């Protein structure tokens, strides 16, 4: 075995994050680490690389016991890591990020030219031709993610760890990353791969280890598992209905709820028309950077529209700011939950009631008992894994944070809810749960705008799908045409380029 972990234990106040976990990694294998949100995957990785101090357990690499006290030490021992969410430094250039800590030097000073050259070299396998001298922060999340992967790969002499590296990538980019990973496997590296996309797990990995509630449940060869069994291991029960198949689309014409006419903003999204029916789920599809988030932000007043207007049949809507949009009954679960969603040091309770309280105004505080009731209710309904409602939300695992943000908006009961990548980083169980919730909400009359990179998800829940390309709404698919193939074609720009615009 290349890497052996024995009875690794880590306790946070109130949470046993890891409970005597064993884990083996062979050279030349890709090993999936799976589990629900909050199962302890990221914690295991951080303990392994010295980012957290572990409470107990031993780590052996290549036969020698190691005890990295910091990520630098882990790197020096040949362990390269892409951490979940915390990625790279947006204020440094791409080249600086890639080469950080091992910059080429001449006479003791950094040799900028060699730095750039080596950085470009590092990026080459990923087919990314970008200006490495620009700040990383000026690139999209996807590009940042690939840069992070490239850096980790370059650092990993023996072990490469990828914690949900593909969460914000689309299909083509995922393929590229996988090619690189396979190449490394050939070279005899051990690779740990964390993901909630089971398809990717089956596609790429050789073995699977499942964690649940901080305990190791099982390690098996991927080939010997099937989807249902794997999910059972993860959840500890069978999943009633997995996300698949078509939404039960009714042909019935829904009464229109909202109408956007010529809505747009220069340099952000070209003017578009959109009608949303009562109780309808409208999907937004497109490649990364196609302008989906921007469209959503426009509708919620994050960046106010410069042209066009919105109405609900009776009157014109004021969507000049999030507050105005909320007053019109809008809700918005943002894509970047860390910067736009959570208020990290506030408790789960406070995060959930924040929107409700803001709408009520500062003078009328929601009574504490009421707050507790609301928080407990949603913690139960959305199955948020926490030791209590007073835990700071920043200490939750990524997926559970996402659920808490969702709870914030559900508690406000909007008539139109915008969900931007609501299932990113969410485990299969919760994934199904959220899609079930969407259905339930629409049945109760709520209209939903669903932005998603997962076409299956759109097919499963959307009544209608708008496809975006280059910041333009280029196609609208409805009824029986909401299928994976059709959406893919529209995204690629093959079929029905014209004529279908805002049909």
């Amino acid at each position, binding site marked *: 075995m290349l890497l052996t972990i024995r009875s690794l234990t880590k306790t946070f106040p109130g949470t046993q994050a890891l409970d005597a976990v064993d884990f083996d990694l062979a050279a030349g294998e890709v090993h999936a680490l799976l589990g629900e949100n909050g199962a302890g995957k990221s914690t295991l990785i951080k303990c392994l690389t010295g*980012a957290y101090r572990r409470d107990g357990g031993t780590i052996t690499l290549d036969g020698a016991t190691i005890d990295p006290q*910091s*990520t*630098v030490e882990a*790197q020096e021992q040949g362990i390269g*890591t892409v*951490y979940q969410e*915390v*990625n*790279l*430094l*947006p*204020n*440094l*250039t791409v080249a*600086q*990020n890639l080469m*950080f*800590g091992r*910059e080429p*030097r001449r006479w*003791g*000073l*950094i040799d*900028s030219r060699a730095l750039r050259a080596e950085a470009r070299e590092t990026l080459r396998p990923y087919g990314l031709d970008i200006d490495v*001298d*620009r*700040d990383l922060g*000026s690139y999209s999340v996807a590009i940042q993610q690939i840069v992070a992967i490239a850096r980790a790969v370059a650092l990993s002499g023996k072990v490469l760890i990828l914690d949900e590296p593909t969460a914000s990538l689309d299909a083509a980019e995922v393929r590229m990353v996988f090619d690189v990973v396979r190449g490394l496997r050939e070279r005899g590296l051990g690779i740990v791969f964390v993901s909630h996309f089971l398809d990717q797990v089956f596609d790429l990995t050789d073995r699977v280890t499942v964690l649940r509630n901080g305990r190791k449940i099982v390690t098996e060869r991927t080939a010997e598992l099937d989807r249902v069994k794997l999910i059972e291991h993860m959840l500890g029960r069978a999943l009633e209905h997995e996300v698949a198949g078509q939404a039960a689309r009714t042909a019935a014409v829904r009464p229109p709820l909202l109408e956007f006419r010529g809505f747009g903003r*220069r*340099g952000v999204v070209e003017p578009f028309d959109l009608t949303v029916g009562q109780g309808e789920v409208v999907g937004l599809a497109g490649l990364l950077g196609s302008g989906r988030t921007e469209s959503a932000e426009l509708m919620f007043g994050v960046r106010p529209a410069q042209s066009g207007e919105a109405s609900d049949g009776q009157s014109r809507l004021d969507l000049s700011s999030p507050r105005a949009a909320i007053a019109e009954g809008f809700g918005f679960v943002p894509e970047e939950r860390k910067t736009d969603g959570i208020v990290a040091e506030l408790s789960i309770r406070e995060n959930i009631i924040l929107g409700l309280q803001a709408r009520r105004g500062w003078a009328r505080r929601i009574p504490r008992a009421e707050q507790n009731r609301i928080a407990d209710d949603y913690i139960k309904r959305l199955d948020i894994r926490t030791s209590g409602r007073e835990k700071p939300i920043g200490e939750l695992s990524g997926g559970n944070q996402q659920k808490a943000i969702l709870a914030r908006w559900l508690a406000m009961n909007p008539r139109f809810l915008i969900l931007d990548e609501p299932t990113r980083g969410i485990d299969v169980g919760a994934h199904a749960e959220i899609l079930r919730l969407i259905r339930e909400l629409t049945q109760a009359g709520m209209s939903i705008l669903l932005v998603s990179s997962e076409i299956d998800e759109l097919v499963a829940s959307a009544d209608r799908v708008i496809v975006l390309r280059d910041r333009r709404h280029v196609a609208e698919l409805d009824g029986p045409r909401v299928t994976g193939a059709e959406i893919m074609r529209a995204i690629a720009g093959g079929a029905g380029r014209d004529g279908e615009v805002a049909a």
Partner: protein
Amino acid sequence: MNTRALPLYATVVIFLLAYLLCWLQFPNILSTRVMGNLLTDNAYLGIVAVGMTLVILSGGIDLSVGSVIAFSGVFIAVILRETSLHPLVVFALLLALTTAFGAAMGFLIDRLAMPAFIVTLAGMFLARGAAYMLSIDSVPIAHPFYKTLQSAYWLMPGKGRLTLIGVVMLLTVLAGMVVAHKTRFGASVYALGGGEATARLMGVRQGRTTMLVYAFSGLMAGLSGIVFSIYTGSGYSLATVGTELTAIAAVVIGGTLLTGGAGYMFGTLVGVLTMGLIQTYIVFDGTLSSWWTKIVIGVLLLVFILLQKGLLKLSQSRLAAGA
């Protein structure tokens, strides 16, 4: 064009524009004499601002520097008065002392996770208090070596003087540029300013870097103290009160973000010269009462910052539209 350098360009453009405006009103301002003065009079500020830039880039702040400059002057003057040590030896002692002082503050900031603002505020009280304890009186420095240092200048055409301390300041800025932009330590500083948690995960030795940053600032403050003592030929415990704020303002005008992680050392030089230009303009004008002087300095500061912000927005939207 690289967007990260935009604040720097904005700063330079505004400075040149301001100089032009001053020149239109007072043609004298373009003489080598005034330019030489600008360098000499702001030498101590420029040096201390170099240290401050690095601290701010790392996401911290150092409020102690003004007091450390005063302490340095008093220390040098008292030691030279009491002993027969050569000034160069005293300089070495002093620099070791101020560097250690900076490092100690860095240690507290890192190890005890205390905010830099507060630790260096205490450092500010401490250094000033130490200066008082050395001597309350202002102490003249009579050592002949000081005369040599003071009269070391190159007479530029037009009777302007390029003094030794002005040159030291320029060299310090140069050294600062190398440290910030050309060393791994500098890269770590930017990384820390960009985000501590991320920087740690990327392999920055946070403790070491923090300590070094404040040690560097202490070193610069000590050097600035030496320059200041040459400039005034004495040590005085009440000197340079509030210089830390001037230095911070210069760094900010120079386009460095107070939250850390973004900025250029060269911008700081321009920022310092801008502060000097404001001073010079007010003296040349010579009609402002004591209170209007303060108001005008504040207003000019605001105008510079607003112009910078405006210019930045403009060019960014240009870029966005062009892209």
